């Protein structure tokens, strides 16, 4: 049962990612990216990472993707076609990505499987309560700094977007 769920969600994720990469119309591409986000949220739920799943949906699929769509609509590009890309570059690009895939996989082959002791794992690690305890006890400083980071992002975005400084 678990395996079936895993493969289903994985398939949806990869399929929508593929469509996103190869779609001509940018609007369709962004929409399929939203589907990818949702499927990854599904993955999180399967891993019992509940907090992350919710955050993924709210922040990624809800805010970031909407921002993408907003900009796309504002620029009024969804009717345009992209110009043709140089064939040589395309070929080299595919080659590079393939190379990368092999490299990454090769690296991960060295990971020892039996170091993962599955039996005594704390299964409640993804629960909000546990994560919250961890966040506010050990990682308070990064938390505060993250908020400053967001502030900087806001200021930056506004400044860049102004017509006259």
């Amino acid at each position: 049962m678990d395996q079936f769920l895993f493969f289903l969600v994985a398939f949806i994720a990869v399929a929508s990612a593929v469509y996103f990469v190869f779609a001509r119309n940018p609007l369709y591409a962004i929409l399929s990216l939203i589907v990818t986000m949702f499927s990854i949220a599904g993955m999180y739920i399967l891993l019992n990472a509940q907090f992350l799943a919710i955050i993924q949906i709210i922040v990624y699929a809800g805010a970031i993707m909407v921002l993408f769509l907003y900009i796309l609509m504002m620029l009024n590009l969804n009717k345009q076609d992209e110009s043709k890309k140089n064939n040589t570059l395309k070929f080299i690009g595919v080659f590079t990505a393939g190379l990368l895939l092999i490299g990454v996989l090769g690296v991960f082959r060295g990971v020892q499987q039996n170091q993962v002791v599955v039996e005594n794992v704390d299964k409640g690690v993804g629960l909000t309560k546990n994560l919250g305890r961890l966040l506010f006890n050990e990682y308070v400083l990064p938390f505060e700094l993250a908020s400053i980071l967001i502030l900087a992002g806001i200021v930056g975005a506004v400044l860049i977007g102004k017509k006259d400084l």
Partner: protein
Amino acid sequence: MENLVYAIVLLPLLGFLINGLFGKNLPKIVVGSLATAMVFASFCIAVSIFMGFNSESQPVIVKAFEWFRVNGVQINFGFQIDQLSLMMIMIITGIGSLIHLYSIGYMSHDKGFYKFFTYLNLFIFSMLLLVMGSNYLILFIGWEGVGLCSYLLIGFWYTNEEYGKAARKAFIMNRIGDLALLIGIFMIAGQTNAVDYLTVAENAGKFELDGSVIIFITASLFIGATGKSAQVPLYTWLPDAMAGPTPVSALIHAATMVTAGIYLVVRSNFLFTLAPTVQGGILFIGFLTAALAGFYALRQNDIKKVLAYSTVSQLGFMFIALGLGAYTTAMFHVMTHAFFKALLFLGAGSVIHAMSNEQDMRFMGGLKKYIPITHATFLIGTLAISGFPLLSGMISKDEILVAAFAKNPIYWVFLFILAAITATYMFRLYYLTFHGEFRGTEEQKHHLHESPSNMTLPLIVLAILSVLGGLINLPHFIGHGHYAKLMEWLKPVLTEESFKQMEATLSGVPFGTEMILLGATVLMFFCVWFIVKNTYVNKKKQALPEAQYTGWEKLSAKKLYVDELYNALIVKTVEGLGRGGKMFDKGILDRFVDFVGEGAEDSGKAMKRIQNGNVETYILIMSLAVGIILIVNFILQ
């Protein structure tokens, strides 16, 4: 005494500095008088030192400072005052001051008046260094200095390119001789571990007689003397040097600089006595030079060129004397030659001045009634050089003749013929210039006038010296107590051997024979005078333009084409080398350097293409790099 010695040398230097730095702003009379006064003051000091010297006096060494020490050879900067150097100093400063006085008048219209006197003073200073130095290196400094001044003064009117070429020719030919001289000095330093005259004289005994070492040294020194004293083959610069103003020709090329070679040989007599082979060589070169130059002078049309070749010929005579081992005779002839040649040159300058700068004898003639003082003094000079009895020239030349006869009667015959040639061309010069009809233009005739007194006064003084100058070294048959004064006086300068050799030569001729020889010479003189006078005055033979001569006359006028020969052989070769060098530099070196530069530029251009501003390519290269690093890592695991 030391201060006096320094003063002799430094006064002309002071004159040089003052005139050089400030002369432009000073009035002409100040510049001229200052320069003349400096040289004359040196002359007076030299005379005062001379009063205190006699034939027994030892050389006085005045050491200024220790110069440097190399490999055990200690070289000092100092001056040596002995009879020989005193004699040269007096000649240089005495005739020098007369020529300075003359130049005030001659150059009075010239724009570069102050420059002229600056160079003249510098020349006197260098020449004094040359004769007063206590070792070979200081001699060389003076040697170079007079070479430089000669260049400056020959090319004085630098706007004319021909004059510049003549100056360069002089300098380069001198340089060739200088190289040989330098090699000789190095050899001396290497062999005797010293360069000052006294030490080398002491150590000269250890050279083997006529050994290859001493032959090499003396030959090198003689080649150096050849360059400076215009002997074969390095003589062609002297006639071209007539491009300079006439006082320059008088001072440098008649009286002083060209005698530096003879001074060198006399100074090194302790070396030359040990190398009879080289002495033979000197004799041969002297004969060759005297003969060739005399031959050329027979058909030259420029008044100064005749005198120039005459100088070369007389220098040949002096070297003949040296080759015979008669050192004091050579010095005697140096002195008398200085008197009458300077007189002749200054007189020629006066003639040129009167003729509004015309130098060609074909346009002169009959000048004796227009410029009487110049005429009279010029006549005295001509008589002196040709050998009129009891004038200075005859006595010194006769001594050379006697010495030649003592060695080998054939030499006497050659020399006799050469003396006849000398008389011939000098009288030709005299008659063409001063007698007959005036052949110049009307305008020149208008301007004919006697020279001012500052020009005629030196002429008169030199004329007197030319007449009386021979009396200091009369041959021994004239009378006791008065003879051979010069020879006795200069005795300390020569080594025992040199002196013995010389005395043997000069008294090797029995009295009767000597009288016959003397009689023959005097007879020859009068014959030549009569014949030449007949040809040019009575038969009114004219001097032709150079191109119209034929046969031997053409060879004489064209100077046996030696100049053209040198040009083709040497000048063209060196120029060819220069062109080759230029092509090498431009074609190969330049190309190589450019190639390196272009290589750097091209590689930059190639690298520039990476920066095409295209974001896609940047991203591509980044990811490609990451991928490759991962793969390499993976393979290496």
